[in-house]
């Protein structure tokens, strides 16, 4: 090897930089830069006085409401980017021109209506409390997580999860999304009325990862090109225009297969994506998704192997910790106690303060 070859090989190396990682680091940047101002303000408005005043109103409504019921119709139209303090329930970061209002607040329920724009929710749920966001007819129920809801054109709602789990209900089916997953759905006209949160829905939801059910009328083909177009704009799409287009088309097909309830076909397409575009940064999240799809088909060994491929592909990547935990759970589901124990032990060794610590401990015991 000469220096030209060394430079060429180094040039080909790319960080495993995906959308999840990008959002997480941006969040950390904002947390770091906002720190000095936090002591004096609950909100930060990038816009003008109007946004600031509106923000303050909502913070007051949510933050000091305690057990009282907030009247519907309190709106926040954002002019820049603002943070809403949701009292003990975390916060919401509003994008430009987004509109959120409180539909209902009781001791057992917090329901927000997002009418337009993009809002990032960082929710800390209190046990026994139901938190949901309705966006263009799609209901996103919160388990305790960080996620983003965007209302796109034609009534499509895009939900992207950064951490934890959410349940997306389009009126006909529910789909649970985990870390790194995103879906675009539109609301069904056959929606059942939203259950009364005070009428027996106080039990905390299980945080276990369950089989993925798919929504019928998802239209994720619109979603994938959206994020990939952003990548192209940054000049970082898969090398070569043709390859990039091929990857996009395949990802759109995968989303369509998942959206139309064909997980076995989606699994085959995911394998094809990994095989045909091995250097694409989305391979890591595709392997994670493959693990979840295999699990939904009750192929637990295949699921475990997919999660293992995911973390081995990016051992220090954004999904590595979750993938190791999911691998251990999948081995356990497959009845392979020896492998489950080994994987859980390895997780605990690597992440002694990890988010799945309790579940891994249970697998070992």
């Amino acid at each position, binding site marked *: 090897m*000469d*220096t030209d070859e060394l430079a060429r090989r180094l040039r080909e190396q790319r960080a495993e930089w995906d959308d999840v990682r990008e959002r997480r*680091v*941006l969040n950390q940047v904002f947390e770091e830069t906002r720190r000095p101002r936090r002591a004096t303000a609950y909100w930060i408005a*990038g816009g003008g006085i109007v946004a600031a005043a509106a923000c303050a109103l909502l913070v007051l409504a949510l933050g000091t409401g305690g057990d009282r019921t907030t009247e519907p119709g309190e709106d926040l139209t954002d002019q820049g980017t603002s943070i809403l303090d949701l009292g003990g329930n975390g916060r919401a970061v509003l*994008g430009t021109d987004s509109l959120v209002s409180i539909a209902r607040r009781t001791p057992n329920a917090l329901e927000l209506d997002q009418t337009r724009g993009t809002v990032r929710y960082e929710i800390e749920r209190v046990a026994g409390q139901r938190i949901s966001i309705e966006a263009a007819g799609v209901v996103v129920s919160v388990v305790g997580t960080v996620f983003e809801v965007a209302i796109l*054109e034609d009534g499509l709602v895009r939900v992207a999860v950064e951490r934890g789990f959410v349940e997306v209900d389009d009126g006909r089916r529910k789909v649970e999304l985990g870390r790194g997953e995103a879906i675009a759905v539109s609301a069904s006209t056959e929606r059942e009325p939203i259950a009364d949160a005070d009428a027996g829905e106080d039990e905390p939801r299980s945080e276990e990862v369950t089989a993925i059910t798919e929504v019928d009328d998802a239209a994720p083909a619109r979603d994938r090109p959206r994020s990939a177009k952003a*990548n192209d704009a940054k000049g970082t799409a898969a090398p070569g225009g043709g390859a990039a287009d091929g990857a996009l088309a395949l990802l759109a097909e995968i989303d369509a297969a998942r959206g139309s309830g064909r997980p076995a076909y989606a699994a085959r397409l995911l394998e094809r994506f990994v095989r045909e575009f091995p250097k694409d940064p989305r391979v890591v999240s595709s392997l994670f998704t493959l693990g979840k799809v295999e699990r939904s088909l009750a192929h637990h060994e295949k699921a475990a192997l997919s999660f293992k491929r995911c973390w081995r592909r990016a051992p*220090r990547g954004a999904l590595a910790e979750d993938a190791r935990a999911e691998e251990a759970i999948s081995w356990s589901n497959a009845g392979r106690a020896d492998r489950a124990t080994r994987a859980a032990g390895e997780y605990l060794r690597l992440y002694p303060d990890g988010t799945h610590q309790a579940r891994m401990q249970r697998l070992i015991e």
Partner: protein
Amino acid sequence: MAKPQAVEIDDATLVERAGRGDEQAFAQIYCRYARYIAGVAFRLTGDDSAVDDLVQETFVAAHRGLAKMRDPEQLRPWLVTIAVRRSRRHIGKLARARKGRAEIARSAPRAGDARDTERIDELHEVLDRIPTKYRVPWVLSRVEGMTLNEVADASGWSVATIKRRIAQAEQRLKRMLDGY
């Protein structure tokens, strides 16, 4: 509701807005350049686990410095300059860690996808053997394709020094690569 329209806002406008505290503008700057900065940091250091911190440090420093930025049209080179300085600090530390990992890897079984990690480690093991002051300009010039002036701006050394150091790096690497 009016349909959203994609409008490309130029860097100078974003810098001006972000400098006044518009976080949406800052987020746009981040979305435009974070992936590129992550790539530069990765190729300079060879350690994926350091990339998050380096990107974060770069954009935190940028957030604090945007209001004082003299030439907003030079946003990308300015971000690279910050990233290079942050990366330089990490290189020595990472080189020591990589040496330890390489020793473990020699006695450990190899399998599957982990080969990617080993390959990049091997490439950076070579770079670890030349001093940082030679390594950084060589990577910026030969790997990132930056001009001598750009490398000089990013690393804070004169063009003459950069030229000399790239040549030194080239010579040392050639000697080492003879054995590969």
